[in-house]
């Protein structure tokens, strides 16, 4: 089972760079999600990997095979990959069984009986046994999705590519299929690239997430790493909600924002440098006004501007005293505070993550 190595890939459309110096390593058997907003180049990347597009620069390697480079692209049919499309791309003129069996036609030396057996098996895996003779038009969205999955898995590809496969399903089904896809990945352990713009989906399904920004990888890591140690403003904002605070380093472990000073989760800052902090809303605790100072904890004063009840938590917007900052705080819904009230904000030093990019 080979991995995928993407090196410095680039591809333009007109004058616009869709993929712009993208590098990524996917380990054998790993599932990496390509996560990013619409238009950041996810689909283009996947189509480059699939061999539908030729890169302008960079290379794509699978194991020890160089599949794409500006001088040569191995055509899709010889890349030993499978792909699941956003539209599913099921052939409307073929039955479920014919759709699923199609890729097996190109496996030389596979007897017909063996082929049928494999189709039957995989349809059982995706819980579609008994639907062999249906046409795609006679299936629900979720069932079509399963056919697409079966069609891709039955050929036992070296690499599996998925382009927003769940985006056409309704919310409940989407939730269910996330776990289903993760389960299938654990069962078959195929090296997989999974494109999505939904961070929740990426977090549930993938081993690692590559956050894409304007055609490059902004950061790659596990969901945990991205959430707790975002390196850029973009990543911090894209993975979950956050508060961003701009400031200037005044000590190796502190920054100033106007009259406010924040102790941060770093002690290597260069005084005088511009830095930005990311503080997750649920890392901020609401305490009584004028709470006592503690070591390694930032205490700020503020007044509540708005409180939105969200069920398990309450989303507060708090205007920080002596500053232009308005911070979001996610607090448990046990005690409800009213807008206009004065509060203290307790922010542990470890919650103030310094972003690499200013």
């Amino acid at each position, binding site marked *: 089972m080979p991995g995928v190595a993407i090196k410095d890939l680039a591809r333009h459309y007109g004058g616009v760079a869709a993929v712009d110096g993208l590098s990524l390593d996917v380990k054998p058997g790993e599932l990496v999600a390509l996560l990013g907003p619409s238009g950041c180049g996810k689909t283009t990347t996947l189509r480059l990997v699939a061999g539908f597009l030729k890169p302008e620069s960079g290379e794509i390697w699978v194991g020890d095979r160089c599949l794409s480079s500006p001088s*040569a692209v191995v*055509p899709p049919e010889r890349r030993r990959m499978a792909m699941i499309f956003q539209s599913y*791309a099921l052939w409307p003129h073929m039955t479920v069984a014919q759709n699923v069996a199609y890729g097996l036609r190109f496996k030389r030396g596979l007897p017909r009986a063996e082929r049928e057996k494999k189709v039957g098996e995989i349809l059982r895996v995706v819980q579609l046994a008994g639907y062999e003779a249906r046409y795609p038009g006679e299936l629900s969205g979720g069932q079509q999705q399963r056919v697409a999955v079966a069609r891709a898995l039955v050929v036992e590809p070296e690499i599996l590519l998925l382009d927003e496969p769940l985006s056409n399903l309704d919310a409940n089904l989407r939730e269910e299929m996330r776990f289903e896809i993760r389960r299938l990945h654990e069962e078959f352990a195929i090296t997989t690239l999974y494109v999505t713009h939904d961070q929740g989906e990426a977090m549930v399904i993938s081993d690692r997430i590559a956050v894409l920004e304007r055609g490059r990888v902004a950061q790659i890591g596990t969901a945990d790493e991205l959430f707790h140690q975002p390196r850029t403003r973009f990543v911090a904002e894209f993975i979950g909600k956050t508060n961003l605070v701009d400031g200037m380093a005044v000590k190796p472990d502190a920054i100033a924002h106007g009259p406010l000073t924040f102790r941060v989760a770093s002690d290597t800052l260069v005084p005088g440098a511009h830095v930005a902090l990311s503080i997750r809303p649920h890392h901020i605790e609401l305490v009584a006004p004028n709470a006592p100072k503690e070591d390694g904890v930032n205490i700020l004063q503020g007044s509540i501007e708005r409180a939105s009840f969200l069920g398990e938590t309450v989303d507060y917007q708090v205007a920080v005293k002596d500053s232009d900052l308005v911070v979001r705080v996610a607090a448990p819904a046990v005690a409800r505070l009213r807008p206009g009230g004065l509060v203290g904000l307790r922010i542990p030093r470890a919650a103030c993550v310094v972003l690499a990019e200013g």
Partner: protein
Amino acid sequence: MSVSTHRRASGATLRGRLEGVDRSLPVWVATALAIVALMALPLAWLGYMSVGAEQGTTFGHYREVFRDEALRKALWHTLVLAFWTGLVSVALGAPLAWLTARTNVPGKKLIRALVMASFVTPPFLGAFAWVMLAGPNAGLLNRMWRDLTGATDPLLDIFTMSGLVFVVTMYTFPYVYIMLANTLALIASDLEDAAAIHGAGRLGVALTITLPLVAPAIVSGFILAVLQALALFGSPAILALPAGFHTITTQVWSFFHFPPKVEQAAAVSIPLLLATALLLLMQKRLLGRRGYATVGGKGGQRRTIALGIWRYPALAAVFVVMAGSIFLPYAVLAKAAFARAWAQPLTWSNVTLANFTFTLFEYSSTKAAILNTVELGLATATMGAGLAALLSYVTNRRLVVGHQLVAFLALAPVVIPGVVLAVALFIAYTRPPFVLYGTLAILFVAYLTKEMPVGYAQSDATFRSIPPDLEEAGRILGAGRLRVLRDVTAPLARSGIIAAWCFIFIGVIRELSASIILFTPNTRVMSVVIFDLKEEGQFGAIAVLGLAMLAMTFATVSVVQAALGRDVLGVKE
């Protein structure tokens, strides 16, 4: 270590290069080159010939042509014919479209079928029929009139400009109808209701909402009708020549009477070509700017306007129009086909099948013409549908550099009137490197060129409706491009391509304006023979050939309807 990685990398790249060869590329390149050759050769010759002199270039031919009094007259007659045809076509086509799209007029299906019949009837057949109906001496309607009133003067004279406009319009108004009916079908009544809620009266709504929305469609229908009249050869040749006047197309044709004056023909052709191109450009602009997109509301309800007591009078009015284009002409053709003497009443002694046996089995020139037409129709439709399918596949999937040029060339013949095309092909293929004149091949090339836009537009729409995902899904699972074409694309495109085949076939069997210049005694086709038989006064044979042509046309039309699941008029172009 670094050396070995390096070696491995270059080895893999070489292998990649070999694996990377796209074996289908020659097919696409050949397709693109075919269309370039098909279009470029004759047009280049045409332009060259119009300015060619013994030495260097000259505008002498243009000067000669436009100083010629006769030609200036022909030009004027063409303009008059085209303008009035456009106007009357709107006057007939627009109300018809409104009636079927928006009112509760009875027999809508029948009306649509009749409009479709007018659309596919070869105009020169209509012209013949109207010669039999309204020729000043022998015309049946005039004889009835004389018998009834005892008058000595004819009631109608078809050999006049107004007669010509009338006959041409009878087969041209469907263009306006198609444009407008398709637009009206897209305007949801809620747009109109919105205006009504804001206080506009009935007339106000019509003037402020409906009319501006449909105006581009009406004007573009007008332009299509004008173009039709500009390019027409058969009807003017049948009706204007006996009346003693020429149009541009008949004038170009007369340049080919011995000795052929090819340079003049070329010099007349180029302005005609440019005028057509200009008009089509205008039409595109018109539709492009406020296209149907703004009009389109998919779920919108269309309210039906109740005509009340006017329902049946409206239907009667429709039938009057259809009498002019279908009922009377078809009846007189049928009568002539079955009568010993077409001008006599159809009594038992006058009924015969002799015309059929004569035309189909005995008369060698009609027999040969039918065979030639069928042969050319099958060959052109098959080759044309195939080439159009490949071309539109190439342009849709952007398989070669310059695919935009390919699309442009495939649609370019739309602006080339038949006689102009014939002049160009005549010049191009009477000299090396390709000498085709005198063979069926030159007609084949002419038809292929002329019908390419129809075939291309149809297959383009077909491939547009097949998402590329479906092909890519096959590719990634191991099928090469040609294999995917066979397993996925072809089955999905089949009915669209069958329709393209039929459209081309219909166009070929009725073609006259290019054929009349390119035929030689051994390569006559049905339309040409019909035209020639008129000189001999063989109306029975004309009628039989005409009916045969109509039968083939309607059979093909029904195949289209089966393939597309809708009628021919639904095409929006």
